[in-house]
């Protein structure tokens, strides 16, 4: 079972996630796209672990999951705070620093 298809799928998912981050306006959907990118990189980690025959890649994927969980908690809390003060979840509305 070759590893190249898995890596290509991982690359495709990462690209789709990055396009989503660039295109979407809703901050929560942008967050979901970031999660998709993290998951794609996890798939590459697990695939390379099988390629090299060591488990270090799986440990790295595990750490990525931990960091992603922490990031989601803090990020969604920030989103809630922004929504509470500005009544909007759009990334375009939070532009006060621009002026």
């Amino acid at each position, binding site marked *: *079972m*070759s*590893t*190249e*298809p*898995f890596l*290509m*799928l991982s*690359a*495709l*998912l*990462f*690209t*789709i996630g*990055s*396009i*989503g981050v*660039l*295109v979407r*306006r*809703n901050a*929560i*959907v942008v*967050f*979901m796209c970031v*999660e*998709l990118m993290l*998951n794609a990189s*996890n*798939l590459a980690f*697990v695939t390379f*672990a*099988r*390629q*090299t*025959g*060591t*488990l270090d890649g*799986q*440990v790295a994927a*595990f*750490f990525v*999951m*931990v*960091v*992603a*969980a*922490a990031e*989601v*908690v*803090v990020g*969604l*809390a920030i*989103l*809630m705070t922004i*929504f509470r003060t500005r009544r*909007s*979840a*759009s990334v*375009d509305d939070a532009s006060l620093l621009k002026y």
Partner: protein
Amino acid sequence: MIVFWVLAPIMVIAAIGMIVVRNAVHSALLLAVVMVSLAVMYAVQNAPFLFAVQIIVYTGAVLMLFLFVLMLVGVDTTDSLVETIRGQRAVALVAGALFAVLLLVAIAQSTLGAVVGLDQANRTGNVPALAHLLFSRYVFAFEVTSALLITAVLGAMVLAHRERLTPKATQRDVVLQRMREYASDGVPPGALPTSGVFARHNSVDTPALLPDGSISELSISRVMRARGTVRDVTAPEGSGYTVLLPSIRQPEAPDSAPSEVPTEGGGA
């Protein structure tokens, strides 16, 4: 390999759908499809521990958190399709396509050599082998992870906490406020009239009728009136749901408020 070729198109389609659909809840559900498929991919690649963790942590915890926040923030906040930067979407698509081509060509051109496989590394079982690595070579990173988690918990608590600026209204305060409104504006202090008391039905979509045959505005839920699902009791029986026209309701609003006060007292 069959699993891969079945799941890979599903994952790519779900991921594309995730960034295309406008409703954020649909995006979250499509992301769940991608994540569960990824868990199966891990299982195929001799990573049973990550398979379980992916389902529990990602689809179980992270996505539910997303859905909870969507519920709090409001599901109806659909994305605006207006581009704030002109041509940004097209540029993003082109850049993404170029990036995908770059990555795919790089993967296709590189020679990775023979796949070693994890049978040797997993011979004591995947979880014991991972635990051995985690508590020997990566033990420092593992300890730092605990600091990260504590920081995340504290950060979420601080950010989500809202200080109460005014004292909480007690039952006594509410009663006093109602009495004050009754004295100043004549707002009935008691309970609101129930729906359909003097009408043909007693369902919530039927407004109560006042003694003079007019509709009691207070007996209908504000939400149902806004949705236009209030039954028109002045229409003949069996005509079904008809939207109460604003022209019927609004002229009554100024002079119906005082006339409802005696009805309120009589009903109670």
